């Protein structure tokens, strides 16, 4: 037991000695969570649009005022047509041109019918669609306002409720994702490097001939990273709750236990990488560069998994962070209990056990 403690202390020294390791260990999660929380959101706002009012009458004026009052848009009024529209959109700053044709108001007065045209830059399809949805909603609201009530006999009023996210907090979706991503990369990379370093320096052999059991060597290697990762987890959680106002709806104990399980899975994966690589560089290349984009893509928090080709969906099943992401989303954001996440939990346990068995086997083989 005393040996184990000494060993763990040594690992801590290793981590704290190198400031650049600390940058990755704690700097990266903090930077990421803040970026995802404040800078990157799925919300679409500050849309730059040009309004070309060729009608210049009371009705067009009223609609323009409504568009201007909306917080989604930054508007500019400029009468343009034909080629100028294309020129404007090519500059890349303007996302949509709204065109009131001449005679808009008089058509509306005389025939109770008028035309209105939106030309959006479709380069980013979701932004373009969201923008058109916003504009349509404004026009529909205006339409209702000016129509006499008797003219609208059967009116269906859709009432929308945003479940789990009343304030439409755009970063909500990213928090569980970043948590999964950061823990996965940091745990795996640091553990694999820590073990391979001993191999590279030749100190592993020394450890193995000591009376200390090989399994204990691995445990002693893993414990500091388990503790550091849990600290990391708490740090991210605190930042999310107190800085980003993301609520924890479910049981915090369940969340903690599940996170511990996920960290164990990542540590086992790191150990596995360390048994198949010979140098710190190779380990790092594999665990960081190699894992980075797949983890980001297959966790499903940026790109919806259901849009991917079936082969990718199949691959995503073997990525541990995918299951952890589902668990965090259910427990933390939806406030659901263990009955909803037992399947994911079982999968994570299975992965951990398999990875541990394989790496222990590899490890012993090397000894012989």
């Amino acid at each position, binding site marked *: 037991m005393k040996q184990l403690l000494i060993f763990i202390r040594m690992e801590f020294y290793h981590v704290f000695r*190198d400031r650049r390791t600390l*940058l*990755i260990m704690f700097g*990266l999660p903090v930077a990421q969570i803040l*970026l995802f929380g404040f800078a*990157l*959101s799925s*919300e*679409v706002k500050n*849309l730059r649009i040009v309004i070309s009012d060729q009608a210049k009458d009371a009705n067009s004026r009223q609609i323009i005022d409504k568009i201007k009052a909306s917080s989604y848009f930054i508007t500019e009024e400029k009468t343009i047509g034909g080629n100028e529209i294309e020129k404007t*959109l*090519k*500059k*890349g700053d303007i*996302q949509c041109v709204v065109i009131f044709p001449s005679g808009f108001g008089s058509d509306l007065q005389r025939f*109770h019918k008028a*035309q*209105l*045209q939106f*030309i*959006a*830059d*479709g*380069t980013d*399809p*979701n932004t*373009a669609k*969201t923008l058109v*949805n916003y504009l349509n*909603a404004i*026009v529909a609201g205006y*339409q209702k306002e000016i129509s006499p009530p008797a003219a*609208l*006999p*059967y*009116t*269906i009023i*859709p*009432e*929308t*409720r*945003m*479940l*789990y996210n009343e304030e439409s907090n755009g970063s*909500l979706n990213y928090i569980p994702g970043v948590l999964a991503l950061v823990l996965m990369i940091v745990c795996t990379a640091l553990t694999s*490097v820590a073990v391979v370093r001993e191999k590279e320096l030749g100190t592993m052999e020394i450890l193995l001939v000591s009376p200390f059991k090989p399994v204990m060597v691995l445990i002693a290697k893993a414990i500091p990273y388990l503790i550091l990762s849990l600290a990391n987890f708490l740090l991210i959680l605190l930042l999310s709750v107190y800085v980003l106002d993301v609520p924890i709806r479910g049981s915090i104990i369940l969340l903690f236990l599940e996170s511990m399980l996920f960290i164990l899975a990542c540590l086992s994966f790191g150990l596995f990488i360390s048994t198949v690589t010979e140098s*710190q*560089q190779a380990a790092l290349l594999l665990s*960081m560069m190699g894992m*980075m*984009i797949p983890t980001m*893509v297959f966790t499903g928090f*940026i*790109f*919806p998994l259901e*849009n991917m*080709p079936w082969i990718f969906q199949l691959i995503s099943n073997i990525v541990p962070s995918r299951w952890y992401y589902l668990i965090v*989303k259910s427990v933390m954001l*939806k406030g*659901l209990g263990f009955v909803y996440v037992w399947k994911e939990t079982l999968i994570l346990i299975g992965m951990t056990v398999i990875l541990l068995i394989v790496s222990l086997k590899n490890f012993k083989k090397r000894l012989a």
Partner: protein
Amino acid sequence: MLRYILQKEFRQLFRDKTILAMMFVMPTVQLTIIPLAMNFEVKNINVAVVDLDHSSFSQKLISKVSASGYFRYVNVSPSYKEGLKSIERGTADLIMEIPAGFERNLVREGSQKISISVDAINGTKASLGTGYLTTIVGDFNQHIQLNINADRTHTEQPYQIDTTYSYWFNPLGEYKYYIVPGVLVLLLTLIGGFISALNIVKEKEAGTIEQINVTPIKKWQFILGKMIPFWIMGMIVFTLGLLVTRLVYGIVPEGSLGVLYLFASVYLIALLGFGLLISTYSENQLQAMFVAFFFMMIFMLMSGLFTSIESMPAWARTIANLTPITHFIKVIRMIMLNGSGLGDIKMELLYEVLFAIVLNSWAIWNYKKTT
């Protein structure tokens, strides 16, 4: 003097076949595969319908929703509670609840509410899903109103503004046009950034830097000698990437290739300068990789590849503008999709030139021949 160091760098570059292969094969393969997974398109929104009315109106509304093509029914639940369960389980994204007495109230009282409850954790899906649904309900509404109003004179008719909309440069809203050019830039950045960040530090580790330090070579010649081979490699990688974009995804640049290459060449100088700068600050390859990874991560997230820069708060936009990759991603999309010309991108080009000058001078300044 410069000639000799170039000769040495090229020889070293061609000697290490694995790195060379990695530089060319990795981006080509990744560019072919990754965009397939990066699809933000919102389709097949799973909707649980709770119809408590079972009237002809509610049936019509439901069939209108299913005919729209955006939605997929997961179940028709007997109650809101049941519907909520499918949201909790993650099988439904949205519940549309039609209350009892829907038709009767519409006829008698003239208006009736229906409720739409959406799983709002995923903001994009939630806002587009409710947007589509309210549009469909609105259409349905207008349709039944027209039937009733048919025999009235037009002054009694409601006002109706028909909106037409079109999406230029990408009329079908396909994500590949948006993603592929961006991923090309990202891969170029990863390759160029890492390889250059590891380079000088490799000489430090091997000790060969001391040998270079005692030669009369100037600091700028040394950096330039490191830069030129990588720059040429980078341009080849970029060309390969453009070929993949063209052959695999069928994306043909709308704008001028010359302008694109001009921009890419300036961008590479800035990027390689950044990599070399990291290299001059690091003591071993591991450190260089950690630091490079940290910055690459930030670059990637802030670049506008995944989320639009316009929606960011002002301070984040400032950071985004201070990263060279942001401008290149914007410009490559503008040139390839919108067909923008040199005049449209001159500001971005100016930024990139500034980055190139600052980063490289910094790297030269920080590279010390004496320890």
